[in-house]
């Protein structure tokens, strides 16, 4: 049939040109063919329809062939600095420095970590897959405890967990550094890393985000020390002396537990209303004796505090970023604004 033959030729020509080979299946040629069925004599219509379907099958096979066309391109010398016969001006070179960027989350974590390092904390990483023991049990969440309901975790088929907080590292880090205590040195660690919550996405909610966790354990560490440490950090971070406020809270892994807020720094202040006065940042508390004991640290002789807060919110507030989804979008228009 002539229409089919013309269409096949057109499609082939287009197919050679387009980059997205799959798009050929949605090409208007097919629609035109189907629309043309009205002009066909009724007794030939079924034959015509079959021909269109055959053409479609054939075009699909072009895509499959194209998928397999890995050997079509000549092999290259993978050890060379450039391809053969490349004139000097066409050789690969780095892009302009002004085009480069470091992710704003990386920058913020660096700024934060820098302060804690100056305060004597060591920096560790968290994990992206952990088990129930580290995420819950070692942190004094008994099995089936309702406090677990506050953490909407992702779980794998094997029952492993995508950690919903960086505290998933507490037990390991207490164990790793517990010999410090025998040497009259504190356990002082911060963990800035990625965490996950089973939560729907919108402009202010991400299922994947960053948190920084801190733990400090030594002899006779008290609540006043916790407040002082957080204040010292915040004052340095915002380059301004700020009031710090604790609000009672409940976490199974600290006793007592708090949420902490700071007086809103000038750079983030919109007006003088009461709502604008305080900035709630995160949770903290004195590490629960069961958590210390579980890691082999004697809660009778040592005590300590832990704290944690989110990174994205800080970056968003400081830069006026309107949508949290930009961070993981890999959108260069967003990223290249952060040098």
């Amino acid at each position: 049939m002539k229409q089919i033959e013309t269409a096949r030729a057109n499609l082939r020509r287009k197919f050679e040109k387009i980059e997205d080979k799959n798009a050929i299946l949605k090409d208007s040629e097919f629609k035109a063919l189907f629309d043309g069925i009205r002009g066909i004599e009724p007794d030939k219509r079924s034959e015509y329809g079959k021909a269109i379907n055959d053409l479609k099958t054939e075009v699909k096979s072009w895509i499959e062939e194209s998928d397999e066309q890995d050997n079509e391109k000549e092999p290259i010398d993978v050890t060379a600095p450039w391809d053969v016969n490349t004139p000097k001006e066409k050789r690969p070179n780095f892009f302009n420095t002004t085009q480069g960027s470091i992710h704003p989350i990386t920058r913020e974590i660096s700024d934060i970590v820098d302060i804690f390092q100056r305060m004597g904390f060591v920096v560790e990483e968290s994990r992206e897959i952990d088990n129930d023991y580290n995420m819950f049990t070692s942190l004094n969440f008994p099995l089936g405890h309702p406090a677990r309901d506050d953490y909407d975790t992702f779980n794998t088929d094997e029952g492993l967990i995508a950690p919903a907080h960086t505290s998933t590292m507490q037990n390991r880090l207490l164990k790793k550094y517990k010999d410090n205590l025998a040497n009259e040195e504190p356990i002082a660690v911060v963990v800035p890393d990625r965490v996950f919550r089973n939560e729907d996405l919108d402009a202010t909610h991400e299922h994947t985000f960053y948190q920084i966790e801190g733990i400090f354990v030594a002899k006779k560490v008290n609540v006043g020390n916790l407040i002082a440490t957080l204040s010292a950090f915040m004052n340095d971070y915002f380059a301004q002396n700020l009031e710090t406020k604790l609000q009672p809270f409940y976490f199974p892994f600290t006793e007592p537990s708090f949420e902490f807020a700071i007086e809103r720094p000038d750079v983030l202040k919109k007006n003088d209303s009461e709502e604008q006065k305080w900035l709630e940042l995160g949770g903290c508390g004195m590490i629960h004796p069961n958590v210390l004991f579980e890691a082999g640290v004697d809660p009778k002789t040592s005590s300590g505090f832990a704290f944690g807060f989110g990174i994205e919110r800080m970056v968003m507030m400081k830069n006026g970023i309107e949508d949290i989804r930009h961070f993981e979008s890999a959108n260069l228009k967003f990223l290249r604004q952060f040098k």
Partner: protein
Amino acid sequence: MKFSINLASYYSDVDYNSLPHSELLLRIGSQLGAVESVEDWSKKYHGIVVAKVVYCQKHPNADKLSLCVIDDGGVTEGVDRDENGNVQVVCGAPNVAQDMYVAWIPPRSIVPSTYNKDKFILESRELRGKMSNGMIASPKELDISDSHEGILEITRSGAGKEPVIGEPIVDYYGLDDFVVDCENKMFTHRPDCFGNLGIAREVAGIFDKPFKSPYWYTKSADFELIEAPRLNIENNLQDKVPRFMCVALNNIEIKSSPVWMQAYLTRIGIKSINNVVDITNYVMHLTGQPIHAFDFDKISDRSNSAGIRPRMAEEGEVLKLLGDKTIKLSKDDIVIATDRQVVALGGIMGGLETEVDENTKSILIECANFDMYTIRKSSMRHGLFTDAVTRFNKGQSPLQNDRVLWYAMKLLSELANGKQSSNVYDIASFDTKDDQLNKVVVKTDFINNRLGSNLSDAGIKSILENVEFEVDVYEGIIEVTVPFWRMDISIPEDIVEEVGRLYGYYNLPVELIKRKAKPAPRSEIREFKMSLKNMLSGAGANEVLTYSFVHRRVIESTGVDPDKWAYHLRNAISPSLQYYRTSLIPSLLDKVHANIKAQAGNEDNEFAIYELGKVHIKGHNEEGEENLPKQMRRLALVVGADKKTSNKYSGSAYYLAKRYLDLITDNQAKYEVLDTFEYPMTSPYRKGRSARVSVNGQILGVIGEFKQKTVNSFKLPEFCAGFEIDTDILQSSINNRKYVPLSSFPGLKQDITYEVSDELAWSDLYNFLDAEFKVASAEEGYKHYLYGLDIYKPEKSDFKRVSFRLEVSHKNKTLKTEEVNSLIDKISKVVDEKFQAKRI
């Protein structure tokens, strides 16, 4: 958790009246828990007064309206009055009658039920030709209950006192409440704070005033023994139901509960139903102890021998719940059943068949204690999150059941005419006559050390006694007897929390820790990763972060089988987040097309995006933590350019990607043609245009162009390539560059070109040549630097010409051209022997 300040003020000496709300909220926020919202009820009722209907007749022009004249005692200003000082109001309610006391909303006042939405302000206006000044209000309009069948009739029994004409309604019913809603999360460990009494006690403690629980709550109840037929009450499930109490009452008269109770329930967000249901709700919100009322006749109809017991459900049993939802039970559900059938899901919700309704004459009250874990699981299994679940899954005290039941019976007798018709059944797993309260011994020093405070024995004693702990102090040793409702206190740290919170954390001295000058250990992994980022971004690349979870399609697009390699999430929120990634490359490739299309911000539409992240592959576990997948730290980079921009390059994008990889490997990387494509890391690449990368013998990863299937699936541009390497291996295998002292003698430059087989790898030639110069340098004292200059291959030939430039100097003399030429000649001879390379 909503609680009423009116109720709190009833039980303590805190002077709520003179306490500004702002101060109250500040203290609650900093010493109890975050306040979610507040509602000031007093403002809602401004202007509304008790009035008496002195005259009532049918409206001459409307069948369903009445024309009333009311007496407000003359207290309302600016309203038209008749010669007796009374006010005319048109009323549409069927129950309005002469001599009735009513709530009158005068003109210019707001209808309370509209207070929080679009405020509706009344006025004087004609209704069917008769002037109506304001309105006579229904309970619903007053926001006291949902009832809207008629106006609120103010009676002595509804308020507990005689109506006074002209008294503001807010005073008459005590509606001037301030309701505070605290975040539930704060009370996860505080079952007592799910009752208003519990919170009232805390607030008293916060303001340093002693709290006094009602008399019926502090002592075990004495129940009267009566002559009554035995009920068939059992508890054979004492491990899951530590206490099970029941009593029957007859002579019940179902009606509305009194206005004060309806109003209280409304304020804390509970709908009023009838007196019996309201009493069970009231008692629960007061104490935190849920109780359930069954219609006893309906229970009897469904038993062989009247009574109930808790038991585990049988698989497949069904129960129709209040609200008409039918659930299929599992063997892990606790149910309340007669000897014939299930009548309630224990601790969660009652059954529809045995519910109390307007015809109920006798009731059976159940007041039990349930295992919090079982309740929580059942609640999640059936998706039932009732007020009872909220309380039982925090673990209520089994010592309060008798007291709460006693009080409920008292209210049922007073407000529903209930008469006890059975003895009180109390089947517990412990001796209920011997209340063993927890004792915690803690030292004053311990408390002060943990808080950084300087509290005295007496100070601590008073703080704890305010909230009804029993405290014995002897020379710095404090023995605390924990009240039965405090299920959260068992260790000294719990007392620290109690004292610190009630004392006020803001009162604590704040002091930084003293520390040694010893530096904290370096974080080498982090430093290394930062140095990679600084190098790449300094070279114009862009760091991106992408999700750790990817769509099945993203993995499959690179020819990898997700089922074989990838960890699968069983509760992903969307298909696009179903698998842990096995490699970073697919995540980057997934972002190429969108950025090309968006022409991201510069004339040349090209970029290098990279990510440092972790991947996990099934079958690889951590050393030392064998039950966990090994986390592999990776760096991946992808370069891409649109067609137009890529015209400025000649040859494969591979070489641009390689440029970046050579940068971060400090030119120490070795490239070998990739010949296996079966692993997640190698699978995306194109044969003949990809390489395995190693540094000093350690395999780092893979670099290359992508295979056609991958290109097609991700709609990649023609000019596109990338690499993925293991950063831990890079960090451990890369050598630090050694400094070479500068020579003070001028050096020479010489270009060298060899004609070699097309098949010879450029680096084989380069490395050999460089090594030969090294040997010579070591022997003769040269310093040399060798780099590529050109690679030329005539069309259709089987050879290529490779040019290098040699920069050479000597450590203690000025080199002559002849010397360098003879050095090159000598080495070229060796090169020729090795590669049949003809020097041109």
